[in-house]
Every structure is written in structure tokens, then in C-alpha cells.
């Protein structure tokens, strides 16, 4: 065999080739020799001398394929006229499917046989991929006249004759098949394969196209599928609606959705799966949203988790579908939360407040994780609801919100005298942080907490120093180090003081010195403790204490230079052994009371004036502490009221069953309510300073800023600590303008600039 171009008789060569082509298409057996010589035939025709006859071969092959398909088509003629429901229709589908299977198979071989023609003759004329994709001016005419590879040509002919003519009938049959699957669910696996195969033929027949290969599938089949499915879903929905409750309806819809998903994967092209799902959701969920929502409130308030879970599954895919559900949940949490902390009364309001609120929080957190898959939208609704409940003003008409105070008190209570075990306390503290995080006025909490911490530390009321540290660290985690800085310093001061006492005792031992009393001293850093500026309380220290104080001061000054100690006698306490009426008592009391009693060691009576002048106590302090001693019946007073001329005398007939007891200052100078108000005003002052500092900081870096931008910046900076009110910010801006830190710019009324 020669590869050289030679003169040939086209009809003879084509005659031979044609037989092979025929066999190939019918999937009959082809002898190896025939197959090989056919390759040569294609080649010789394409390179024929004097003129290549490729175009003629192409035309003849095209004609042959057309005829072949036309013959096939005729076999379907009977179906085109008759009514072909049920069995008959199925038959047609099977027949088409097997015809298509054979044809596409044969075509594949044929394409191989014509490879030379495809490669050498047709590829050369083909528009390049890039040109198709970017549509480089090629007119549709040019494309239609263009020659195609034989395989593609065959597919196109199939489309033109078979699908064009039978398409609508096929689609109708397919849809009937699918409907039967939906209603009766009795398709055999062969039926399923056929339907899938037929549908797939709509795709395969244009698969070779680079662009719009799904066009035929979409217009011929998909549109009708969606339409038919839509009306099926609609009728299904209305049927269900007549007989079902909301909860049953949701179960049914979920079942339908699942089935449809399986069905879609069974029959249709990937592209349609989503569209079909959407159609189903539209018809069965969106269209009946009002129905689904009709019992939503009740589901939430009765905690019907299964229903809620189903509702979530159904509404999640819809755009904004969950909005209403979230809103309903939010309202429910708000109401339940507000109810749980309303009308709290009695001694332990703080405990009830925190624990009730926690209960609500926990309940809904649990609900969200169990039924709503911890959806962030729901979690943020929970946060929003809790924050709004916790920061809302209590209904008793007071203007301030007490949450911060109550939570602080709750912690104080835990750390002071709870009988629970250490791990219990710790877990309760952790939970209190959950509530704490919702508080807007974190600075108020901080004030209260630090006052309570100070009291616990100074009066040795903490049940466990480790727990104190744990709690401070928890707060630090929640709000940052700035927030707990002072708390931490207070905590370390106590540790340092313990060391200091040990060193002092060692120091005394080294000097062979001894104190006549058992002394323990706490040394605090002035700036860190919320003790107020009470430095100048006048008091003449009794001589019993003078010596220890002097010794400690000299020890302290030798250890630390440049520090000045101030004694806070109103915070000190001690234990006295008092022998009275032949019995002795151990009495714990405050320093001022000790000093007063010590005066009576050697004399039995004295006038009030004398006592006060000796001790140099202020009027208030004197009255308060004297009264407590009188109340405890150790001292007697000869008048009803404490007056300068009144005579105080020792009660020589004093007797008490208990030999060990404690005297507390009876008249609390500050009632708790006053203390609270004082704390609030202090917080207000601190806030003003904080805001002013923030404004100056911002303006220093920005130089010029609009009013609104400045407000925004301030709000975002102060968010960690508290939520400042706009009037307060405005006041701060005014006062900074007065102090000439910033000024209004000349050309605009709502713009400020920094004054360097």
C-alpha cells in the first residue's frame, strides 16, 4: 500500500467503504481486514490525485447518516399518531433508548474510522476554541455551513431528525414515568435506567458544543419538568393542607424533599437538581409560609423541639425565611427573661437575679444547639434578648439599672460565706461571667466589685484567696487587663502584706525585741484601693498601740525608701480580753471601740467630753462607737442621749452567756442605699474623665473630625466598659472646648479640630 496520492475512482472506493460504514452503524461484525482497508479508503479519498475528494466524502457520509436515521425514525411513526399512554409509552421509551444506545455506540466507532478526515480536513477549517468562546465576529451563517467532525455530524443529524420529531412525545412519556415514580413508586430498575438514558441523550447529543451544550436539554425538557413538578408539588401541598396539622405537614414536606432529592439524582442532569429543589421549596414552603408560622409562637412558648427543628430545616433554605422565627424567639426570650427577674424580693435578690437569668439563658442556649444547629443568627438573637433584659430598667420606676450591682453582689456572696465546695463556687463564678458579659455598665460592676473585694480582703472575709485570683483572671479574660488592673493590685497587696508581717516578726526576733500584742498589718497601695480620701480622720492612738506602730514604721522605712505610711484606723479591728464581774470575755471590736474601753481600765466613770477629747474623735465617730458599746451593755450612760455632760460608767454587773463575741458599730453611717448612690455618682465622674480622655486621644490623632464621626469613634472605644449616653458625650465635648483642648472649626458648625 502506498501513501502517495493517487488517482482513484470515487464511486468504487466509497462503495467499499460504505459497506463497512453500514456495518459499523448497525453494530454488526466487521472483519479486521475490512476495518483496516476502510481506514486506507478514507485516507486515499482524502489525498486523491489530482484533486482531494474529502468534501465529496463528507457529503456522501452525511447523506448516508441522514438516511440511516430517517429509517430509524420511521419505526417510531406509529407512536406519533396513536395515543400512547401507559404500557405503550413505556415501550416507546425503551425502543428509543436502545436505538439511541446503538446509534451513539456505532457513531463513536465511525468517528474513529474517519479520524484522518476529522484530523486533516475538518480541524483545519474549524474555528478555534477561543474564537467560539469570545465570539470573534463569526456570523451564525459561517458556523452552520462549516463542516463538523463525523461524530459530531452524526449527533447533529440525530438531533435534527429524531429529537426534533419525537422530542415532545418523549418528554411527555418521561414526565409520565416520573409522575408514576412519584405516585406509585413502582418503576423497575430497567424503567429508571431508560428514563435516565433518554434524558441523558438530550444532553449527550450536544455535549460536543463548547457553549450552550445544555441549551437543548433546558428548553426541550427541563422547563417542562419544572412546570410539571411545580403543579405536582402544588397539588400535593394543598392535599396535605386539608388533612394535616402544621407539625404533620412539616414532617410530610421534609419527607417529600428527601424523596425528591433522591429522585432528582436518579433521573435528571446535575444542573436540574438544585432547580427542582427550589421549585419544591417554593411550592410547598414559601407559598404556605403563613400556615407554617401560624403555630410558631405556640411552638416556641411550649418548647416543642421536634416541630421547631422541622421548621428550621424547612425555612433555612429560603431567603430571609428565618427572620420571623428568630424575631419570635427573641421576643419569647425577652419576655421569659423579664418575667424571671421581675418582682424579686427579700434578702437574696442578687442570687435570684443571677440564677433565674442563667436558667433562661441556659434553656435557650440548649434549645438553639439542639434544634437550630447552633445557627449564629439564633445565637445572636439570644445575646440580643439577654442583653436587653439585663440592661433594661427595672419596672419599679427607678431610673438606674441594678444588674451590675446585683451580679457583683452575687460574686461577693459566693466568695464570702458560701458553704459550697471550691469547685462548685468556681463553676458558679464562671456562670456569673456569662451574665456579666451582657452588662453594658461594666464599669459600675467594677466599682461595686472592687469595693466588695476591698472589704473581703481587709476584713479577712474571703473564703479562699485562690478563688479570688481565679475570679480576677476570669474578669481579665472577659474585659482585658485594664479592667482588672486595680483588682489585681489589691490582691497582690494582701500577699505582700503576709510576707511583710513575717519579715517584721523575724526582724523583731533578731533584735530580741517583743511586742506586747499579737500584731498583723496590711499595707496597701494608696491608688489601687477604693477607700476614698479618708486620710485625715483625727484619732489619738492609745499608748498600747503606739509602740508597735512606731516599731513597724521604722522597720518599713528601712525596707522601703521614699514611702509614707498612713494608718487607716477605721478599718482596723482587734480582740480584747476583758475581765468584768469576775468573768473574762474575749471580745472582737474595732479600733475606736478598743481605744474607748482602754480608757476605762483604771477608772470606772468619765464624762463624754473627756473621753472624746482624749481620743480626739470626731463627733460622728464618737457617737457611733460609744453607742455600740452602750448597746452591748459593757458601758452605761446616765442620760438618754449622748451629750457632753453625760457620764459614762463601766457596767459592773455585766454578764453574757457567751465568753467570746463581737461588737459591731451599731449605727451604720452609710445605709446600703446611700452607698449604692455614692458608687453610681463616682462611676459617673469616672465616665466623664474616661470620655474626655478618649475625645482628646481621638482628636489628637485625627486633628479634624466631624461631630458624628467623633461620636461613633467614642462609642466604639468605650464599648468594653460602658455605653455612654449621647448627652454625656456632648457635655464632655463642651467642657473640652471650654478648656481649650479642642475647638469648633471656623467654616463648619459640626466639626471640631484639635488645639495643640
Amino acid at each position, binding site marked *: 500500500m502506498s501513501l502517495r496520492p493517487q488517482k482513484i475512482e470515487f464511486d468504487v472506493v466509497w462503495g467499499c467503504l460504505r459497506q463497512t460504514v453500514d456495518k459499523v452503524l448497525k453494530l454488526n461484525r466487521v472483519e479486521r481486514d475490512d476495518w483496516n482497508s476502510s481506514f486506507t479508503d478514507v485516507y486515499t479519498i482524502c489525498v486523491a490525485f489530482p484533486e482531494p475528494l474529502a468534501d465529496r466524502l463528507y457529503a456522501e457520509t452525511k447523506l448516508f447518516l441522514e438516511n440511516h436515521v430517517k429509517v430509524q425514525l420511521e419505526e417510531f411513526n406509529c407512536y406519533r399518531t396513536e395515543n400512547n399512554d401507559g404500557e405503550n409509552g413505556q415501550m416507546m421509551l425503551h425502543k428509543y433508548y436502545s436505538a439511541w444506545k446503538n446509534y451513539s455506540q456505532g457513531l463513536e466507532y465511525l468517528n474513529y474510522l474517519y479520524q484522518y478526515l476529522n484530523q486533516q480536513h475538518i480541524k483545519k477549517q474549524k474555528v478555534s476554541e477561543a474564537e467560539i468562546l469570545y465570539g470573534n465576529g463569526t456570523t451564525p451563517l459561517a458556523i452552520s455551513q462549516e463542516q463538523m467532525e463525523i461524530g459530531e455530524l452524526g449527533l447533529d443529524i440525530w438531533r435534527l431528525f429524531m429529537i426534533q420529531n419525537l422530542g415532545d412525545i418523549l418528554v411527555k412519556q418521561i414526565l409520565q414515568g416520573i409522575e408514576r415514580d412519584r405516585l406509585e413508586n413502582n418503576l423497575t430498575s430497567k424503567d429508571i435506567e431508560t428514563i435516565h438514558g433518554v434524558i441523558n441523550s438530550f444532553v449527550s447529543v450536544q455535549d460536543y458544543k463548547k457553549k450552550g451544550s445544555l441549551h437543548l436539554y433546558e428548553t426541550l425538557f427541563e422547563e417542562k419538568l419544572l412546570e410539571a413538578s411545580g403543579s405536582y408539588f402544588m397539588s400535593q401541598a394543598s392535599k396535605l393542607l386539608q388533612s394535616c396539622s402544621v407539625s404533620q405537614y412539616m414532617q410530610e414536606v421534609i419527607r417529600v424533599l428527601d424523596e425528591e432529592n433522591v429522585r432528582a439524582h436518579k433521573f435528571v442532569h446535575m444542573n436540574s437538581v438544585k432547580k427542582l429543589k427550589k421549585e419544591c421549596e417554593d411550592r410547598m414552603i414559601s407559598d404556605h409560609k403563613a400556615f407554617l408560622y401560624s403555630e410558631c409562637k405556640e411552638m416556641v412558648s411550649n418548647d416543642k423541639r421536634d416541630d421547631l427543628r422541622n421548621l428550621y430545616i424547612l425555612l433555612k433554605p429560603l431567603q430571609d425565611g428565618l427572620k420571623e422565627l428568630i424575631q419570635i424567639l427573641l421576643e419569647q426570650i425577652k419576655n421569659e427573661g423579664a418575667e424571671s427577674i421581675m418582682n424579686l424580693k427579700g434578702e437574696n435578690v442578687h442570687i435570684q437575679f443571677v440564677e433565674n437569668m442563667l436558667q433562661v439563658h441556659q434553656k435557650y442556649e440548649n434549645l438553639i444547639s439542639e434544634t437550630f444547629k447552633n445557627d449564629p443568627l439564633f445565637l445572636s438573637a439570644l445575646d440580643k434578648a439577654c442583653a436587653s433584659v439585663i440592661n433594661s430598667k427595672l419596672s419599679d420606676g427607678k431610673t438606674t439599672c441594678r444588674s451590675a450591682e446585683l451580679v457583683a453582689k452575687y460574686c461577693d456572696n459566693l466568695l464570702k460565706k458560701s458553704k459550697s465546695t471550691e469547685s462548685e463556687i468556681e463553676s458558679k463564678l464562671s456562670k456569673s461571667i456569662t451574665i456579666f458579659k451582657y452588662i453594658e455598665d461594666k464599669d459600675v460592676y467594677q466599682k461595686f466589685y472592687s469595693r466588695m473585694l476591698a472589704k473581703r480582703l481587709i476584713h479577712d472575709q474571703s473564703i479562699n484567696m485562690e478563688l479570688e485570683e481565679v475570679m480576677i483572671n476570669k474578669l481579665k479574660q472577659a474585659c482585658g487587663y485594664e479592667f482588672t488592673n486595680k483588682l489585681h493590685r489589691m490582691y497582690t497587696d494582701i500577699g505582700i502584706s503576709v510576707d511583710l508581717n513575717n519579715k517584721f516578726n523575724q526582724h523583731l526576733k533578731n533584735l530580741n525585741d517583743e511586742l506586747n500584742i499579737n500584731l498583723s498589718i496590711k499595707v496597701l497601695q494608696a491608688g489601687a484601693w477604693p477607700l476614698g480620701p479618708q486620710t485625715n480622720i483625727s484619732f489619738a492612738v492609745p499608748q498600747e498601740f503606739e509602740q508597735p506602730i512606731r516599731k513597724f514604721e521604722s522597720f518599713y522605712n528601712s525596707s522601703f525608701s521614699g514611702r509614707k505610711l498612713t494608718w487607716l484606723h477605721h478599718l482596723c479591728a482587734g480582740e480584747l480580753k476583758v475581765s468584768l464581774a469576775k468573768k473574762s470575755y474575749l471580745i472582737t471590736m474595732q479600733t475606736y471601740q478598743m481605744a474607748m*474601753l482602754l480608757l476605762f481600765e483604771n477608772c470606772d466613770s468619765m464624762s463624754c467630753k473627756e473621753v472624746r477629747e482624749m481620743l480626739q474623735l470626731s463627733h460622728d465617730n464618737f457617737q457611733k462607737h460609744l453607742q455600740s458599746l452602750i448597746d452591748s451593755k459593757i458601758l452605761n450612760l446616765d442620760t438618754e442621749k449622748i451629750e457632753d455632760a453625760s457620764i459614762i460608767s463601766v457596767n459592773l454587773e455585766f454578764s453574757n452567756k457567751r465568753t467570746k463575741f463581737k461588737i459591731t458599730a451599731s449605727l451604720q453611717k452609710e445605709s446600703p442605699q446611700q452607698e449604692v448612690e455614692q458608687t453610681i455618682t463616682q462611676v459617673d465622674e469616672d465616665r466623664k474623665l474616661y470620655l474626655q480622655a478618649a475625645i482628646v486621644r481621638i482628636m489628637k490623632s485625627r486633628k479634624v473630625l466631624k461631630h458624628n464621626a467623633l461620636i461613633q469613634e467614642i462609642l466604639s472605644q468605650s464599648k468594653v466598659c460602658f455605653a455612654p449616653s449621647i448627652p454625656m458625650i456632648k457635655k464632655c465635648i463642651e467642657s473640652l472646648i471650654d478648656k481649650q483642648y479642642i475647638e469648633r472649626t471656623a467654616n463648619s458648625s459640626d466639626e471640631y479640630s484639635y488645639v495643640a
Partner: protein
Amino acid sequence: MKIKVKSWTSVAWWKWIANDENCGICRMAFENCCPDCSFAGDDCPLVWGHCSHVFHMHCICKWLNSQLNQQLCPMCRQTWRFNDR
């Protein structure tokens, strides 16, 4: 009446002995730390000069390190000498 003091728990606070409220270099209050520190007190101590001026130790050291020739007190321009007391 016979009385014996068994024990006494006393509380005192300390402040720096300084002729000013604030550090002349960083303008922070002495009872707070310098801008580079996070804890006041022993972690951020004060130092006294012979000229009687007081600063955060960190602040004056930074100042002295930034001076090329002479070590002067930033307040009174006298030669800075630490007063160890």
C-alpha cells in the same frame, strides 16, 4: 475592769513621698505606673535626685539615656545625681 489586748489587725496605706502629684516627665500620677509599665508600686518605682525632684525610675533613665553630653535634671537643669537616701 481589767483589759488585755490579745491581737490587733491594722491597716495602713503607703504613698510615695514626693513634692508633686505627677511625674514631671510622663505626667502620670506617681501612684500610677509610667506609660511603659502595667503595674504600679514595686514594679515601677520612683527615684529621687539630689535636686529634690522625683520621677518614675523608668522615665528618668530614658531621659538620661537620650542626653548626649551632660546628665541634667529635666526640671531644674542641675546635674542629675541619684539620691539614695
